[in-house]
């Protein structure tokens, strides 16, 4: 689905160059932003239909982004609860979380945030009933069958299992984010000392 939406997005933006002012890929949707008084939406719909019939499959493989995670009770306040809920040991949670290669199915919410799918079935977790008011920057979290790193401190309702010291957003980069839709991501475990050495904020 993500490959298809990336292809469709590129196709429609190329066909309407200069008129599409922004585009956002979601899990199951592509949203294009354009001026309704300049561009006619029916033209865009027609182009989307055409693309669907061509049904090209994109098999281009993107680079693998590897992100270090300090998994612990201290850095991920829900780690023990996740293990108990999923009937796994903490080590098994870490193994399941790190052995999977995720695909960024959507980005956004906050600068640098990427929705990574899909976590293994045994790690499926419901969201918190009441979101936390503050989730520390770098928190690695899971919810449903997704995982993500919170690039900056923000409210959040996902389950926290560790912290990642890697910067995911910077105004000095172009584009300003590390992970883009379609990118492949894999986590690997580090200890607290490595976390600090890699610049993780305490």
């Amino acid at each position, binding site marked *: 689905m993500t490959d298809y939406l990336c292809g469709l997005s590129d196709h429609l933006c190329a066909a309407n160059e200069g008129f599409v002012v922004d585009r*956002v890929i*979601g899990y199951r949707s592509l949203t294009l932003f354009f001026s309704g008084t300049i561009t006619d939406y029916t033209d865009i719909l027609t182009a989307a239909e055409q693309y669907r019939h061509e049904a090209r499959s994109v098999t281009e493989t993107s680079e693998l982004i590897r992100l270090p995670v300090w998994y612990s009770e201290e850095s991920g306040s829900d780690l023990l609860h996740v293990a108990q809920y999923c009937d796994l040991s903490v080590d098994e949670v870490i193994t399941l979380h790190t052995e999977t290669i995720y695909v960024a199915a*959507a980005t956004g919410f906050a*600068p640098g*945030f990427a929705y990574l799918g899909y976590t293994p079935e045994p790690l499926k977790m419901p969201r918190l009933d009441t979101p936390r008011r503050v989730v520390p920057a770098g928190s690695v979290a899971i919810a449903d069958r997704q995982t993500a790193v919170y690039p900056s401190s923000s409210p959040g309702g996902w389950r926290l299992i560790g912290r990642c010291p890697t910067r995911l957003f910077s105004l000095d980069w172009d*584009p300003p984010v590390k992970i883009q839709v379609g990118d492949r991501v894999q986590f690997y475990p580090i200890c607290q000392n490595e976390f600090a050495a890699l610049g993780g904020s305490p």
Partner: protein
Amino acid sequence: MNSFRIIEAGLSTTIQDTGRLGLLGAGITQGGVTDPFMMALANTLVSNPPDAAVLELTLGGLQLEVTGAFSVCLTGAPCELAINGSPADMAGPHHVATGDLVTVGKCHQGIYSFLAISGGIDTPPVLGSRSTVVRESLGGLGGRRLRVGDILALGDSPGVGDTKRTRRDAGSAGIVSELESCLTLRFIRGFDWEDCAPEAAEGLLESEFSVASDSNRMAIRLTGGHLQTGITEAWSEATCYGCIQVPTDGEPFILINDRQTMGGYPKLGAVIATDCVRLTQARAGTRVTFQAITLEEAKHLAWLEAHYQETLQQALNQP
């Protein structure tokens, strides 16, 4: 170089321009001034390009001290304006010089007013815009609200003596936001309309809502609906300006400028921009109803609005 110093900062005064589109996918919110047309009018009256950065005031309350010589104009929610203590009409433009005090007093109705200053606020653009997003500490002056003592530089502008513009009556120039005690929000149906429980769709069309007091630049919260959409599967997808999101508690909120770029709650539709701008000026307790329109009708209304704005702008451009 022309500049001014903040003597009184008000509740929440921020630097705004037309905001940032093009980086929603990176999670960078659209942001920008809550009423781009009122900003454009204020800019036009002080001979700025329509998208020059202005000050957006929340419920009035601002005092600044002038260095140099420039002109100012206030549009949007009606406020008391005074130059060196003498009452002045909002539109102006008012020519001011070193030592002068520009005071924006109480805002009697509405929420946001826009102070344009000739030359435009000249803070460094961040990701293509000077707009402040306080939540992300982005843009404006250090990504924050203005504070007492801040000094802001202005861009180049023609000398004040050069402007041939004369004073105008604020009402006739259409520079004060129209404020209503009951708003009808016209919207186009969205993605989740078909999947939503019929009672929730009817509830949206037939209930009278009320603007909640915890509305802000991210979203306008409405109370009084209790819409149970019955949609449980939430797939994160893009949010748009005017998006009608219904969380599990059933009270809808309308997303505006500083919204988060993705949302996982059911989206019943999107309020057309013209009505959404009117909603941003609505104080807590304002009554709100919804009216569904077709995409074609929305397009037509957008065209009419663009035509109205163009005509008014041209009228103001006449010397």
